[in-house]
């Protein structure tokens, strides 16, 4: 009996390990490749441990374009978007959660529509709008369309609706202004939701390739994913070790965040679906 159980347990662990490997090993392989020399990359069957660990691959990848600019742009754009989304989203969520006003249904429907329209649908007309407004060579096309988040408004509205009415009334009796109620009472209470949303938004925009690709045609405004993708296409034959080194640079911050806050990040993304 117990021997059978041990065998089954062992088989399960083995199977789990196999599955885990399928998902994790590519990252490992990426890192290993990033450390190899080009001649070793072109060895078949492949070698596991690099004969010579070439850290300079990272420097080479970094030096092959204006990567400092890309890196700065990525951070700047993701942070600017997040800040704007909170500044616009918190009052809107509060209004939807707490006020009854004429037209609220229409405005909420607009929010719903915005939630369902993907950027892949709007990129062409928005690009043309941006060029008509002469904004193409600025950060604005990258930031402005994301300055409000329907998803964020949804999450925050939900959180605000759970705050008991009496708490707000107590604050009114304490002579707090509406603005104060929002930022000193409601927002601290919605902190977990805010963190969830912050992680979601930052990761999404850090990773985003499509929108910056469409909206930039100038290195000064390109973001890291674009730079990394260009590592591949810049020359005729692909220097896989350099490409993978760039890839590690792109992935590492997110993987580190994931290690540190796995629970919150999973909740951020899964919650976005389950609601």
């Amino acid at each position, binding site marked *: 009996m117990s021997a059978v159980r041990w065998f089954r347990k062992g088989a399960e662990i083995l199977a789990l390990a196999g599955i885990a490997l399928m998902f994790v090993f590519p990252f490992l392989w990426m890192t290993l490749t990033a450390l190899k020399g080009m001649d070793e990359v072109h060895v078949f069957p492949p070698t596991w441990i690099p004969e010579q660990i070439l850290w300079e691959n990272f420097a080479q990848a970094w030096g092959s374009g204006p990567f400092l600019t890309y890196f700065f742009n990525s951070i700047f754009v993701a942070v600017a978007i997040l800040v704007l989304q909170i500044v616009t989203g918190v009052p809107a969520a509060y209004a939807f959660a707490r006020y009854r006003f004429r037209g609220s249904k229409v405005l909420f429907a607009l929010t719903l529509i915005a939630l369902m329209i993907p950027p892949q649908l709007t990129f062409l007309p928005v690009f043309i709008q941006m060029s008509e407004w002469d904004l193409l060579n600025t950060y604005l096309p990258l930031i402005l369309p994301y300055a409000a988040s329907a998803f964020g408004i949804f999450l925050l509205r939900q959180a605000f609706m759970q705050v008991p009415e*009496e708490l707000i*009334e*107590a*604050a009114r*009796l*304490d*002579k707090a202004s509406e603005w104060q109620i929002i930022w000193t*009472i409601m927002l601290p209470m919605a902190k977990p939701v805010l963190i969830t949303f912050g992680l979601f938004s930052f990761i999404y925009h850090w990773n985003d390739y499509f929108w910056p690709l469409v909206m930039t045609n100038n290195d000064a405004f390109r973001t890291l994913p674009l730079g990394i993708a260009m590592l591949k296409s810049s020359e005729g034959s692909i220097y896989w070790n350099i490409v993978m080194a760039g890839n590690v640079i792109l992935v590492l911050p997110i993987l580190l965040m994931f290690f540190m806050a796995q629970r919150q990040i999973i909740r951020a993304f899964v919650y976005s679906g389950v609601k």
Partner: protein
Amino acid sequence: MASVTLKHVTKTFEKQTVLDDICLDITEGSFTVLVGPSGCGKSTTLRIIAGLEKETDGEIWIGGQQVNNTAPGDRDIAMVFQSYALYPTMSVYENIEFGLKNRNVPRAERKKLIDEIAEVTGLADYLKRKPATLSGGQRQRVALARAMVKKPKVFLMDEPLSNLDAKLRNQMRQELIMLHKELGTTFIYVTHDQVEAMSMGDQIVLMNGGRIQQAAQPLVVYDQPSNLFTAQFMGTPPMNMFEAMIDASGKEVKIGNHPITKPLPANHLAALHSQRGQRIHIGIRPEKLQMVSHEQAPLSLVSKSDGFDITGIIDTREALGSETIYSVSTLYGRVMVKSYQEELLRVGESVVVYFPYVHCHYFAQNGERIARDAFFSTRADVSGGV
């Protein structure tokens, strides 16, 4: 300290009348209890005084100033909520401080005031804690401290004790009465609990269906209920109520189809004269009834009691220790009797229930009290000595 006056206050919400022409004078320094069943409008009245809800019509005056268009924060009032409504992300200290900060009280003075109030409420050791880590009673104190520190003209309390367990509630009741004595501020207190209303208030405002039924001192409400509703709301078990008929001559009174055993005294009949030929309600409180076993009846009470009687059989008995509540089925219908006798009667026992005339209340068919003279005599004897 301030008086509060409501003049013809009306509130309608989605075409429903929540408050109907409320006129109310709350004297300076009084402890006024708004009491009534849920949905009677008592909370709405309180919230309109606080400014948390907007009246549809009427005037609200606090301390000789009309405050209809004054924001809640500027009305110089404080409110204690049922759920306490403590700010969960702030410490006890910050909770108490928040209102002072918004009133631009300087930091040093804030600290002094908070330390004072913490001392009074016994919260000195908890100032750094978050509300979530406190017990129910402690949270209650924080809510009180937060209200008191503002030194408001009027204290409003919306069922502040209903989240506490029975023992703590009794204790807090005492403390609130003491607190009111010390502060001398006007208290307006909302509750659905008639015991709280009786024990704490020096004025009771009994509400039902968006109207004030009676506003008076507690014992007046108890002894001279202004109408059927008031009579039956106060007291447990509620006042026994019987439908009766006065014949055209105004001399004979029947309860149901049964003439009462002894005619009513002359002064009662005089008071009921206007009702002759009509239906009325006769009410009597369970503790005012006297009841003896059928066998002993002739010996004990009949002679000395100036009242009528009815025989019946005990259906149920609730022995509560200090008192016993019997439900007796009689020809008049079910009669509730509250007895303080040490000796208990048995369920199924045949009994005689006596109705002393002095304790009978009469209500007209429309529910209004029919006044009669010399009612207060029994109570006057007792309270006069105290």
